């Protein structure tokens, strides 16, 4: 009659495999057990054609007291709310939050891997210093992200090996934000944390950013010494010098950990940035940093390799890039066709035949697909049926991809003209005459049109097709420009990446590569990414024009990079599609096709689509 803590058994037990939550998540297995409930691996049925796994964290509310019950739910909800606002590669993404009866659930990104405590326990002997250093630097990154959270820093407050997942690529993911909370200066909190890892001040309820630094030091100490601090007296790290236990640890790294573990917060690193800097300095000195950067993560080259979700075969090479629109992928091929393919299963919906090779990327506007072809035409077809809507004829092959803006489609042609065509009528609005073919794809931004030309000219036009300014590179500009923060970036066959003032056209900087490039730059977070015929993919700092990193492939990189979440995707003429962490330049995985890749990849909803000259369009999990 009265619902109390003495609920029937089903209220307290683990969910059985096969249980379906909210008609969506099918429980597969238990992957962890915590104080309030279990963590499950489940499959998300909203993705019927792809196996999408999620982690479901359960909280069973057993408290009989209504006030306590409410507090428990609020705490769980707070974790959900904190996680929902955080977007970082080393923090699991959250998808959903719901309650059923006395249980609340949080569905999150499923991390395929093990927690660090399990890694420590299951490793015979000591973990390698390089590997632990790599984790430590990544943990600094994620703590730095939390500590610089606005409006208030978030203090994680429970850094320990069991709250750190190590994924198959050997990267860390911080889990369990149960007690993380925004930090307000001068505010005292209650002691929560894990004994052994928590610093002295946290016992007094004063956990600030320096508390996380201490706990990170304790975590690294545990990983390198195999001595669990929970089994030792609190604050006794000073009595267990790391190199006494594990002589393989370098002096440099030991010094950093000692600083982090100082009893008095004033003696520790004063910011997580300072700690990261010190770890990097130690890594540079021992050479670990160089080894970390050059090596591929150990798990990324599993012998089975990456398997495509599906592959779709055309009758000739694919040299262009795909487009995603409402469940379908559109791609042109040198076999003259534009294909419409089901994104879920790779089954063709329709194809549209032009009279020339298609090497461009399609564009979409209101369910119409726009595509240029070497038959000298711009074709517009219905996305649903593939039936032609209108056709616009230029006097040269169309190898520039159409760009849609403000009621017009703008496209270059080998007829030495840039064409602006009314999107509804297919009538020309204006044409801009140049001295050479235009194969670069125009960029439209801030009421301006930017495009490169095969003789090295670069143009900025206004929306009436009037020239605003002009710039001259030494060789052809096939690369398609992009604009960010008032600067336009493009590469040229003369081997230079140019940064020009977007309003006036003067050069802000030039960046020299080993060879020419027809790859189009991608700009994000102050970094420019671009490929080159010197076999490299470059990351260049947008402010300083300094190289952030470069990644070597085995052949020319004509493909253009694209960024999705924390990774860069780019093809190479060596036949591989590369997935590289864009902040560090570290290879995550590569996928081999049987021909050079010249087109750009497309990533949508965690799936990468890439065409290859081996005639296939592939869909891969990102």
């Amino acid at each position, binding site marked *: 009659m009265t619902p109390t803590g003495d609920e029937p058994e089903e209220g307290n037990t683990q969910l059985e495999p096969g249980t379906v939550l909210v008609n969506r998540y099918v429980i597969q297995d238990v992957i962890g057990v915590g104080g309030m409930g279990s963590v499950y691996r489940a499959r998300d049925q909203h993705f019927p054609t792809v196996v999408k796994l999620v982690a479901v964290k359960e909280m069973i509310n057993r408290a009989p007291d209504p006030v306590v019950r409410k507090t428990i739910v609020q705490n769980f909800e707070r974790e*959900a709310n904190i996680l929902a*606002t955080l977007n970082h590669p080393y923090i699991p993404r959250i998808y959903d939050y719901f309650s059923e009866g006395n249980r609340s659930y949080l569905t999150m990104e499923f991390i395929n891997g093990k927690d660090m405590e399990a890694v420590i326990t299951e490793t015979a002997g000591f973990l390698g210093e390089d590997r632990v250093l790599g984790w430590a630097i990544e943990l600094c990154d994620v703590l730095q992200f939390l500590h610089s959270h606005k409006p208030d820093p978030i203090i994680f407050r429970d850094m320990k090996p069991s709250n750190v997942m190590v994924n198959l690529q050997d990267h860390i993911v911080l889990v369990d934000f149960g007690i993380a909370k925004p930090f307000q200066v001068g505010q005292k909190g209650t002691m929560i944390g894990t004994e052994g890892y928590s610093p002295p001040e946290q016992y007094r309820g004063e956990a600030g950013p320096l508390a996380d630094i201490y706990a990170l030091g304790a975590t690294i100490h545990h990983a390198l010494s195999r001595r669990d601090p929970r089994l030792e007296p609190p604050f006794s790290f000073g009595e267990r010098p790391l190199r006494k236990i594990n002589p393989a640890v370098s002096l440099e790294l030991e010094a950093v950990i000692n600083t982090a573990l100082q009893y008095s917060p004033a003696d520790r690193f004063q910011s997580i940035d300072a700690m990261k800097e*010190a770890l990097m300095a130690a890594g540079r000195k021992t050479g670990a940093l160089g080894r970390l950067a050059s090596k591929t993560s150990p798990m990324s080259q599993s012998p089975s390799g990456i398997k495509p979700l599906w592959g779709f075969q055309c009758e000739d090479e694919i040299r262009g890039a795909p487009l995603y629109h409402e469940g379908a992928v559109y791609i042109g091929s040198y076999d003259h066709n534009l294909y419409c393919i089901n994104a879920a299963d790779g089954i063709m919906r329709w194809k549209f035949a032009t009279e020339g090779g298609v090497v461009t990327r399609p564009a979409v506007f209101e369910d119409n697909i726009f595509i240029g072809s070497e038959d000298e035409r711009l074709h517009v077809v219905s996305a649903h049926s593939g039936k032609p809507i209108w056709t616009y004829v230029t006097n040269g092959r169309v190898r520039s991809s159409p760009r849609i803006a403000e009621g017009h489609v703008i496209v270059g042609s080998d007829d030495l003209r840039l064409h602006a065509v009314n999107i509804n009528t297919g009538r020309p609005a204006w044409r801009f005459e140049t001295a050479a073919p235009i194969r670069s794809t125009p960029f439209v931004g801030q009421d301006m049109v930017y495009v490169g030309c095969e003789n090295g000219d670069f143009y900025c036009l206004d929306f009436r097709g009037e020239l605003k300014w002009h710039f001259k590179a030494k060789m052809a500009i096939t690369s398609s420009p992009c604009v960010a923060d008032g600067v336009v970036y493009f590469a040229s066959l003369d081997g230079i990446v140019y940064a020009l003032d977007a309003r006036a056209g003067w050069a*802000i900087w030039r960046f020299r590569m080993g060879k020419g490039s027809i790859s189009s730059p991608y700009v994000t977070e102050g970094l420019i990414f671009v490929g080159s015929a010197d076999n490299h993919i470059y990351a260049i700092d947008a402010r300083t024009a300094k190289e952030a990193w470069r990644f070597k492939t085995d052949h020319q990189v004509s493909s253009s990079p694209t960024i999705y979440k924390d990774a860069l995707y780019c093809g190479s003429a060596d036949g591989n599609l590369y997935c590289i962490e864009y902040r560090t330049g570290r290879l995550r995985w590569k996928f081999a096709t049987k021909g050079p890749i010249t087109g750009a990849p497309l990533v949508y909803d965690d799936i990468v689509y890439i065409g290859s000259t081996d005639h296939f369009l592939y869909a891969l999990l990102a």
Partner: protein
Amino acid sequence: MKKNFLNWLRGKKTKPLTAQADVSTVPLSEKQVDEVLAEGQRLEPQQVLYACGQSVGKQRDHNEDNLFALSLTFGGEPGNYPLGIFIIADGMGGHQYGEVASSTAIRTMVAYLLRAFQPFIANPSEALDQSIQDLMRAAINEAQRAVTQAAPGSGTTLTAALVLGQQVTIGHVGDSRAYAIHHGSGETLTRDHSLVKRLEELGQISSEEAAIHPQRNVLYRALGQGEVLEPDIFTAPFPQPGYLLLCSDGLWSVIPEINLFNFVLTAKDLPSACQKLVAAANEAGGPDNISVILIQMPI
């Protein structure tokens, strides 16, 4: 509960986690403040406004700081872009001829830049044959050569801002600073090439210790010191609406950053902001020469 969370997921603005529940009136958002600011200051033609302040300070008997400011405006035909050159150089104490070093550096650099811009000024459709960053690098190298010749053994800091169109390119050596002040706050654009700052970056000392460290004037990179000079050069959008502040350590070492920004944000105009900043540095003891340039480019 679920509703709230879904709002998060959809990116709807709900109360922030730390919202103060008892706020009775809604303050203007940052964006609104910026719009109000921008509205009141719209200038045609577009121009770079600036003011300067300088003082020998309370404890030195001569001034080793030098500063330079120039703003060019072309009104009339469209397609003209404002050009501004602003430089602060702080001759190194403890060296002979510190003031010779700082003035030589500035004059050499200005002469080089004006020569390079001459064709562009004469005909704006004439392209510069160097990129802006290359120009900055060349001008600093030229200044380095001149300082080494004119005052061997001396040294100077140098922080230069070249405003062209909507972008500002900073060239920087030493511990003078450039700040961007906008959105009600400020950020340091430059990084001090000082020993103490390095120790602080490495976590060896805290920022509090750095502020009183006996070696806080020791630079590891300065113009006129050493044969190879690696200036920091970078380009960023000019803070709009907002300000660019250049100053020597005689200002920033005695006024906490937050006060520095508040002086600028609350002053009635650029000249009074500069004078107040200099006065505040002197009130705080004026231990060193003080130089400041405050720059604004209304949209």
